[in-house]
Structures are given as structure tokens and as C-alpha cells.
């Protein structure tokens, strides 16, 4: 069924270039305290994540709530301090940046929030909202600021700009609000955009418009984009690669087309099976859903974190040892014992 999927628009991966963003064995743990004092363990939100992102490359991080994708995103934005591991952006380690260097880093990374209405201060006009990042970045000339704002607003198709500038967020529709959020992220000409479920709060008819807009901006400015989502059906329109995240780990990493045509990890298979396309025949059958719920990140299960829910778990292996990344086909990585090399030779 998934084999029919053809991928046309996604550009070739730029694997040869030096990575823009490189994440090495990243762990983000939050300490739990009992009544504010005694140590009571850690929430292991991100637990050993590594990947490279080339300039101009788009990846989607797909996972359910509580899998650690927001913690991963916040760490990349410099809002969380990693417990261990490295985030290297453009050759510089994020943990070594301080003061104005850290501020410069943040100018190079744009953030598109999930809920546009929540992300825009309700008491500020669009003009104020968009001027603020420019003022903070030291652009003193008001005309220059307005010129930059107008240019970005035309890029996100908010025109005529002068109609929008004096308005307040509540006067705009959801789609327009999300364009303002995107414009704000684009103001400082970033190299990387982190988009956290940018369309999940929008109506179906507007969703595609925003995704197409982001795709056009990405292509025009050769942006790297990390697109965080739970909706697999939108991913192929936007991203060259997909990372599937489960309980703090990336369990499968592959090119979008490869992953959708030949998903390997049992969790990826479950996600794909649970995604519906509108079809009246859906009502005639039940969906196959793995039993149980994602594990607690305080005490994740031993071995593979998906094994308690996995129908193909190998007793004595999956419940004992954490699977490393295997590469059963070129550039398709999967952290699952089913794909260990001996298994394939048999």
C-alpha cells in the first residue's frame, strides 16, 4: 500500500556538505525532586540522539506527545541546557556560546510555534511584534526596520503590509496569525527554522497553504528546517528525511520516500497503519494498534523501549539490550534488533 508513494518534489540530499547542525549523543534529562529537596530520579526526555543536518536540508521529527521531541527542539533553540552530548551549529558548540554570541546564534535560528495565537502577545500590534526582534538585534533606524518588515511580510504573503501593521493578533485569522509567526522567525534571515507542529492548530483548508508557503521560503532562502509533527501525511510534502522518535530515542532515520515505501521499525509501521486517508471503506474495518501506551520516561523499560508493545519482540534480546542503529539498506537507519546483520543473512 505504501509502495505506491512516489516522491517527486524533494531535492536530493546534500550529504557531502559540512553539516549546519550536528547533534552528538544528546541527552536532556530533567531532575525530579521530592518536595523540592531529595533527588527522585530523572525524566529522560532525550536519551542519546545523534544526527546531522546539512545546509538547506529539511527533516521531519515524527513522534507522539511525550516522546521528547519538544525537549529536543528546545535544546536546539538554546532554551534547554543539554545534560550531556553536543549541539554543534556551524562549527561552534552551543554550550560554549555566551552573551552576545548566544544572542547571535538565536538570530540564526528561527522558531515557528505551534499555536500562533498563543505565540503572539495579544496587546502588541503586528508592527510592534515584528519590530521587537529587530530592535533587540540593534537595528536603530526605524525606516530600515520597516523596510525589512515589509519585505518579509511580502514574502509570507501578508499584503498590503500597511493594512496589517496596526492590527492586533486577535483581528487576524488563524492562517494570518501563523504567517506573522513565520515572518517573525524570518526577520533576522536565519539559516535554520525549527517549526513545532506549525499547522496542527489550523483548519484543513489553510494547512496546505501554510505548508506550501514554508516550502517556498525554504527553497528560496536555502533554509534548513526541522519540522516537528505527529502527522505523517503532511511530511512528504515538506521534508527530505524523516526521523521517527519514540520515548527519547530516534528509532528510525531515512529519506522520506524510502521510509514511507519501506518502513522497518515496528513503531513506524504502527504509526503508518494508524494514519487514515479519507475513504468510506475505513469504517468497515478496525485499525491495528499496538497495545499499551508509551512508557514513562522516568523508568523506561530495559532494552528496546518499544518491546513491551511490540508483537515481534525477541525474548531475551529486545527486553535485555538496547538496540543500536542498524543500516539494513544504505542511509536507512533503524534501532531494532529485527534488522541485526545475522538476521538478514539467514
Amino acid at each position, binding site marked *: 500500500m505504501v509502495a505506491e508513494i512516489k516522491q517527486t518534489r524533494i531535492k536530493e540530499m546534500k550529504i557531502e556538505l559540512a553539516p549546519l547542525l550536528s547533534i552528538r549523543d544528546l541527552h536532556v534529562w530533567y531532575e525530579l525532586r521530592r518536595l523540592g529537596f531529595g533527588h527522585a530520579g530523572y525524566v529522560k526526555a532525550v536519551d542519546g540522539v545523534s544526527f546531522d543536518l546539512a545546509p538547506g536540508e529539511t527533516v521531519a521529527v515524527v513522534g507522539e506527545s511525550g516522546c521528547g521531541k519538544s525537549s529536543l527542539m528546545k535544546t536546539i533553540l538554546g532554551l534547554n541546557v543539554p545534560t550531556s552530548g553536543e549541539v554543534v551549529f556551524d562549527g561552534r558548540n552551543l554550550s560554549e556560546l555566551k552573551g552576545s554570541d548566544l544572542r547571535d546564534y538565536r538570530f540564526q535560528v528561527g522558531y515557528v510555534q505551534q499555536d500562533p495565537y498563543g505565540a503572539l502577545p495579544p496587546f502588541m500590534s503586528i508592527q510592534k511584534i515584528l519590530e521587537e526582534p529587530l530592535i533587540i538585534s540593534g537595528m536603530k533606524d526605524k525606516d530600515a526596520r520597516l523596510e525589512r518588515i515589509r519585505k518579509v511580510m511580502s514574502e509570507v504573503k501578508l499584503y498590503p503590509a500597511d493594512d496589517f501593521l496596526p492590527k492586533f493578533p486577535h483581528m487576524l485569522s488563524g492562517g494570518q496569525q501563523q504567517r506573522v509567526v513565520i515572518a517573525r522567525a524570518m526577520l533576522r534571515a536565519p539559516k535554520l527554522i525549527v517549526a513545532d507542529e506549525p499547522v496542527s492548530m489550523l483548519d484543513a483548508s489553510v494547512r496546505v497553504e501554510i505548508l506550501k508557503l514554508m516550502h517556498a521560503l525554504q527553497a528560496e532562502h536555502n533554509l534548513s528546517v526541522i519540522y516537528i509533527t505527529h502527522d505523517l501525511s503532511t511530511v512528504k510534502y515538506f521534508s527530505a528525511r524523516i526521523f521517527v522518535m519514540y520515548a527519547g530515542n530516534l528509532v528510525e532515520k531515512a529519506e522520506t520516500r524510502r521510509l514511507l515505501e519501506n518502513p522497518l521499525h515496528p513503531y513506524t509501521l504502527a504509526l503508518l497503519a494508524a494514519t487514515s486517508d479519507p475513504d*468510506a471503506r475505513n*469504517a468497515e474495518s478496525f485499525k491495528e494498534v499496538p497495545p499499551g501506551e508509551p512508557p514513562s520516561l522516568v523508568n523506561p523499560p530495559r532494552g528496546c523501549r518499544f518491546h513491551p508493545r511490540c508483537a515481534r519482540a525477541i525474548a531475551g534480546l529486545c527486553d535485555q539490550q538496547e538496540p543500536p542503529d542498524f543500516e539494513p539498506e544504505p542511509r536507512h537507519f533503524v534501532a531494532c534488533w529485527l534488522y541485526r546483520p545475522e538476521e538478514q543473512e539467514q
Partner: protein
Amino acid sequence: MNPTPTKQLLHVEDLVLHFRTGHGTVQAVDGVDFDLDAHRAVVILGESGCGKSSLAKAMLRLLPRNVESYSGKVFMQGVDVMALTEEEFRHNVRWAAMSLVPQAAMNALNPVLRVGEQVAEPAMVHLGAKKAEALDLAKRMFQHVGVPEDFLNRYPFELSGGMRQRVALAMALVTSPALIVLDEPTSALDLLTQANIMNVLKRIKHELGTSFILITHDIATSSELADEVAIMYAGQIVEVGGAKDFFPAPLHPYSQMLMASVPHLRSESDPMFITGQPPSLIDLPKGCRFAARCPFRMEKCSEEPPVVTQGNRKVKCWLHA
């Protein structure tokens, strides 16, 4: 359309619910008609602000204070429930015949009561059951919705979102109503949990023969349960028909464009979007409410479009007249 109210479960005719606000009258539900047979599910699909949640409120007569007009006919099992007094409605219709799973129901559970007691309460109030009987009923409902029995004694905070949603569903089921109105039952849930809840709804429909009105904006998920589909736009239903006819070939231009905006996982399609915005429910245009965004707009569209019947499908559009 010749209503024979006694044969059907539900017949809604010209239902109107307008609200009074500081800016003017919001015509949230403005002349809605639809029918539903027993053991069937109708999906009411629409985008935010089209009046679909107000329709749910109008069905159950759960009205806020600022109602300007509330009229129309709702026949439930042959009885015009709109003619009943508030007291009769509360005793004989709400919960007993028709119950609601409101939007974000999983967050509406009382945090200081055990979920078992909360599920049992409607049975005690509406069926006059003793507490032990009601708890027994609650236990049976938990089996239907797939919640382990020992969860009866837990508090809401001890349950995951998906489990709480099932509890809310069990609460709606406990009085064995013929009809359940579900307002966005899966919108705040994860993908796998959504699939699970849809499975539960399908099972209830088969096992208990309950009918559903599923109000949602999620087109792909709605197809999991739909026998019939009604498309709502700016306070009105613009198209209604069987799911098997609707999904492959919607009739109304809005339905067509809405369907074309859905990204598909399993086939290569280039999704489109609809330019413009829906009209304000305070200041509605004359004639067809979709005309301003419609690529097939004609002169006639400035007049109120007729409801055209094609077999067992209905569409409110001049193109099909």
C-alpha cells in the same frame, strides 16, 4: 424528502440557534436539516467557526444565556423534543435518549471524584439506579470502551489522556442512550490513541447499536466511522449524503475543495487550499455563503441556493439545480 419521523431515529428540521453579542447577532446554526436512522453514524464536518459545536449544543438544549433565537423541529424517535418543557427534556431526553461527549471531555472530569463514581452518576440520576447497580453498570461500560476494571477506583489524574477520553465515553454510554453526540472526540489525542478511540466507537456501534453524531474537522479520521457525511459551512449544511457516495465524489464546490485540501499518505496528490476566509457569522452575505470563495460562482449565486436532491444525496448549490 418526506419525513416519516416514527421510522427514523432522528429528524432535524430548520434548526436555528442565534446568539446575541456586543457586535451583533451570531447566526451560528441557521436552518439545519438532517436525518439519522438507528444504528448509523453521521459525521458533521466543518472548519472552525462554522457553527458545528453550536449545533451540538442546540441538539442537547445546552444553551448559554445569550441566546437570541432557538427554534426548529427535532424529532427523536418520533417525539418532537423541541416542544418539551425544560424539565421534560432533562428527564426524558438528555442522557436518557441522547447524550453528549463534549469537546475536551477528558479534561472535564471532576478531579476529586473516582472515575467509577463519575461514570455511575448519570445512571443513578437518570435511571434511578441504586449506587451498587450503577457501579456495576459503570463496570460493564468500562469493558465496552476498553478500560480495565480496576480503574473504577482511580482518580482522573492517574489516567492517561486516551483513558480519560474512554471514561468520558463510558459516562455518555451508561444510560444506554440511542444516540451519542461526540464533539471533536479525538482532536487532542495522539495518533495511536486516536486510532484506538475510533476502534472503540466502531465496536460500540456494532455491539450496542448506538447511533452517533460525530462533529469534527478531521476529514481523514471522520471516515473511520461515517455512514453519512454532512458538510457544514457558515451555519448551514451545504451537502449531506452517504459516505460511500461522498468520499469519492463530493458535490458541493466547498466539499470538493475541502476534500482536495487533505494530504494523503497512500497516494500521490497535490493538495490544494481554499483562498479567502469563511464569512463572519454576524454579517452573512446574501445568497450562497460560499460564493465569494467559489471558482464556479455565477450570477444566480447571489440568491439563496435551493436544496437539490440527487438520489439520497442533498446539496445546497445552484450548480446542481
